[in-house]
Structure formats: structure tokens, C-alpha cells
């Protein structure tokens, strides 16, 4: 079975600190990769996605992620976090050969940013 691992369950940072959230997946074929964010009490929103091309992907709100195929990783980064970035972050993977579009999600990382 496919799996997506997010090793950090809860990350606590001060404002202006740099952020890196890890995401690894277990699938040897072509993948499409996503990071979603869920603000308190809200639904999931897409932060960024990778389908092909430049492995460094830029998303909304200053977030970026790098796809490293050899490491099966898609880590999320932000150089300077803000209090408003407090949320839960989910990594998700879609198998590239699939015509059904289903996503496999990691367990999520709760980010708390202190002002």
C-alpha cells in the first residue's frame, strides 16, 4: 500500500523563524505531489502542487517545496513564518499512472507560530 509520511507531528516556532516540514512517500513510479493547509475550523486549501518540470515549486503565501526524486521527498519550506501561518499542513500524493485521481494523505503537521 502507498504511504505518505510526515515526520513532524507538531512544530512550534516564533515569528520570523524559518520553516521546513518533511514529507516522504513510498512509491517508485511517477507521482504528483501536493501540500494542503487547514486553518483552524476551516477546510483544506491547496498551498502548492508539483506535476512535472522544475522540482522547486512556489505556492501561495510565500511557501515553496522541493521535489527530490532520489529521496522520495517533497519538503515544504518558508523562510520567515507569521502568526497567521498557524495551521495544520498536509502532504498528499497522487500516483501518476492513476486515472482515478485519488490522493494519499500524510497524517498532518500542526504548526504553531508564536508572535
Amino acid at each position, binding site marked *: *500500500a502507498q504511504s*505518505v509520511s*510526515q515526520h513532524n*507531528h507538531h512544530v512550534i516556532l516564533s515569528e520570523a523563524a524559518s520553516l521546513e516540514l518533511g514529507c516522504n512517500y513510498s512509491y517508485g513510479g511517477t507521482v*504528483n505531489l*501536493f501540500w*494542503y493547509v487547514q486553518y483552524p475550523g*476551516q*477546510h*483544506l*486549501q*491547496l498551498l502548492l*502542487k508539483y*506535476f512535472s518540470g522544475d522540482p522547486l515549486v512556489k505556492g501561495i503565501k510565500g511557501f515553496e517545496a522541493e521535489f527530490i526524486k532520489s529521496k522520495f521527498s517533497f519538503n515544504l519550506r518558508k523562510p520567515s513564518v507569521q502568526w497567521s501561518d498557524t495551521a495544520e499542513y*498536509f502532504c*498528499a500524493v497522487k500516483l501518476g499512472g*492513476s*486515472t*482515478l*485521481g*485519488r*490522493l494519499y*494523505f*500524510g*497524517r*498532518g503537521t500542526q504548526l504553531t507560530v508564536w508572535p
Partner: protein
Amino acid sequence: DAGITQSPRHKVTETGTPVTLRCHQTENHRYMYWYRQDPGHGLRLIHYSYGVKDTDKGEVSDGYSVSRSKTEDFLLTLESATSSQTSVYFCATQQGHQETQYFGPGTRLLVL
């Protein structure tokens, strides 16, 4: 996002009662999904649909059934609710299999 609504938004029910959750979309997306979200588990796929009357099971489908009689509606039914089905349920839609998945606002279900 993608004009997705879910109803009800909150529901409290008793063990053994049937429950139906509705997902409605206005974007004519072909694919629709039901997930449940539980602490420490992220989102897990219950059922999905790849067209009208075309549905299939996800990884946690036991105790759930779905129906999709028209493009815009995807219903999730708990035939006999159990306390283990207390969760937040999210619907998602997707235009094509290579597109982005959009999520609805969620339904918070409590089974007593």
C-alpha cells in the same frame, strides 16, 4: 472552492441510526470523494466516484455506502452509525484525474 457545499454541517446522532451526508458541487466536476479526518490519521478515503453511478471503495469503506445519481450530488450513508464513525467528513471534487482536488467545508458528526 469549486462551489462545494456539504449538508448538514454539524450533526449529533445516536448509535444504530442511519445518517446521510450530502455533498453538492456546482462546477460539473467529474470526480468526487468522501474523506474522514481524525486526529493522528490525516484524511482517509472512504469512497469515491468517477462519474454518475460509478463509485468505488476507498481504504476505510466498511460501514459506509455512497450514491451518485447526478453529477452534482454525492451522498454518503452510514447505514447504522457507530461511535467509531464520529469524525469530520470532507467531500472533495476534481475536474479531471490530472487536476487539483478541491475540498468542501466539512461535516462534523458525533455519534453518541
